[in-house]
């Protein structure tokens, strides 16, 4: 009897068991282990998600981690950047392959339109809409359009903003508390990073009761590369 032929390791790394198939379809890794645990596997696929945080809460770092993870997995990703605040060196350090990121820098009033155009093109797995300090000013119909577009195209639309706006259209919401900066005082002070509390807000995919501990996670961000 001939033994079972071994699979090519390159091919094997792309295979997943049928049992995990649904999980793989349902969630995408956020690129941060603690956040993945909080979200139950990552950001939902084919859904609108919200990431809420003020300045220096680690919001942009989480956004870049998700983009880096998606691009590294061979997926198409786009960043709609209100104000064009992206720092390419820091984005590179966060693991983003710059040439494979579609970057649209725009004003707040056309950001939703730009994101809608990218969503309508199809084929993008992750669209990050970084509103910076701008308060989202989109009517409810706009968020519903994003929600349906994301479901139709199989895209995760991740909106980063200082306040919630999508309401019940968001499948997952993460709210970040104010970041606690860490300074190393070795002679002169040196900024080392910050610590932020992430709380899972109620989204349309979450229904059952959860303990307070299960809804919170502590995230550490490093300033050193």
């Amino acid at each position, binding site marked *: 009897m001939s033994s079972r032929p071994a699979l090519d390791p390159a091919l094997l790394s792309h295979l997943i068991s049928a049992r995990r198939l649904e999980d793989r379809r349902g969630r995408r890794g956020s690129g941060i*282990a603690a956040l993945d645990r909080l979200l139950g596997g990552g950001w939902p696929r084919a859904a609108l998600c919200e990431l809420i945080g003020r300045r220096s809460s*680690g919001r942009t770092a989480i956004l870049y981690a998700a983009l880096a993870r998606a691009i590294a997995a061979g997926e198409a990703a786009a960043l709609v950047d209100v104000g064009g605040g992206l720092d*390419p060196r820091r984005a590179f350090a966060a*693991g983003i392959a710059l*040439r494979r990121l579609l*970057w649209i820098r725009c004003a707040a009033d056309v950001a939703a339109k730009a994101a809608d155009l990218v969503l309508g*093109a199809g084929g993008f797995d992750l669209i990050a809409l970084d509103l910076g300090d701008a308060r989202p000013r989109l009517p409810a119909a706009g968020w519903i359009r994003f929600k349906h577009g994301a479901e139709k195209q199989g895209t995760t639309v991740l909106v980063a903003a200082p306040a919630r706006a999508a309401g019940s259209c968001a499948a997952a919401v993460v709210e970040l508390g104010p*970041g606690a900066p860490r300074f190393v005082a070795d002679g*002169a002070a040196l900024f080392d990073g910050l610590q932020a509390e992430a709380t899972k807000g109620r989204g349309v995919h979450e229904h059952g009761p959860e303990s307070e501990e299960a809804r919170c996670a502590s995230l550490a961000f490093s300033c050193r590369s």
Partner: protein
Amino acid sequence: MRIACVFVPQLALQAVLRRTPEARGGPVAVLEVAGAGDGAGKARAKRVARVTELSPEARRAGVRAGMTGAQAAAVSAGLRLLTVTAADREAAAAALADVGYAFAPRIERGADDRIFFDSEDLARLYPAGETAIAQAVQAAAARVGLGVRVAIAASKGVARLATRAHELALIPTAAGPARAALASIPVELLAEGDPALAGAFRRWGLRTAGDVAALPIDAVGLRLGPAGAQAGRLARGIDDEPFVPRLPDDALEEAIELDYPVAELEPFAFVLRGLVDRALTRLRERSLACAGLTVRLALDPRGVDVRTVPIAAPTGDAATLLQLARLDLARRPPAAPIVGVRLLALPARVRATQLDILRPAGPAPDRLAATIARLAALVGPDNVGAPAVEETWREEAVAVTTYEPSRPDDRGPLSLTLSPLRGARANGGGDPQLTIRRWRPPEEIEMLLNRQGPAAFRGRETTARVLIAAGPYRLSGEWWKEGEHFQRAYWDVHASDGAVYRVHQNERDGRWYLDGYYD
């Protein structure tokens, strides 16, 4: 109208040298069989290959046109004898046409060795004058391996005549100065291709075009026929040969002349919409998309405004093209009301891609191209693409380059200025990296200082006390560039509003700036 004539002397020789560039600079002769293709009935002696064209080096070595290959080789030991093919000629002629299309949307191909195009529109592009245009044409031809003569005149015939005698000639439009400019051209060149006419001029004692121009045209025509009268008119700078330019083989043109001048953008956009729709319909019939758009506006009462609308990627979406054209017109409004529009659409095939079985499919190339074009119309072409690192130590510098979703996973360009941050987290593992959300350009702020450094600051939207300040980190560079030298002291400050800001002081003038915040 000013017509430019571009002429390739000794086309067969130049065509051969484009194929065999290593032969340039040496003695080269082109062998061709006289009467080739006339059938087998010709006498064998007449089908012997003879030298038809030769390089100056070969001429200096004693080789002459009409020699057989053996005779030429006997005269010059190092002579290279080459034969020209129809493909060589066609390639050279196509290259010559490409040179013309690089300067004008439509050209007339007079023969394989000659093209004509309207050079009047180039005046805005080459304010130095027609000499600059002619030199630019010669340089462009040299890049495709052709040495050309260029003449610019008011008509085709005059420009053609000038190229027979001069490497570069500018013939004035007015009849008197044009006649004077042509006066020195020998009658053999004036009557090129008609030896009988040249012989007649010689017998009459005429040596130059100026001599012919001095004779009454009617009398010359009476004695030498229409060819003589035509030569007489040409010698005076008079020519009525029509100029019939053509588009590139696959380019599309749509045009409209308006009943009344239009000065407003909105009604003009309505006119433009019809042209764009018609052009795209024709393109779609051929399964093509539009890769470039040139709009030529006829202005009232005179003048033209030619503009090329930048298109980020081929698209067949009329709304996108119209939006791009409108943006261009809004940015640079025409100097006068518009009385006519000519739209030139450059077609392109949308790229097909081979999908990877192990990777997600990604966006379809045609839809992606259309989307990028529409995004460019929405936010501006400089704001769509992939971010790139500029080769500078200025922290706020950023560039936009082409988005390549299928690019191999190299994680960005190799860059000297990137190296300090390279090799950080790949995917997962370790704490996530903080980034800086930057203001571009950095916002100038008022800074209150104490003994330790920054104590409080006030900006346009941000006012805060400084709780902790880390720094200064000094950075300077570009002292080798005039007026761009920077010398800065950076600080990371934890402000009373809870954020950690990156600020710097310009040490050259003492001003403070807010770069952004860590996030």
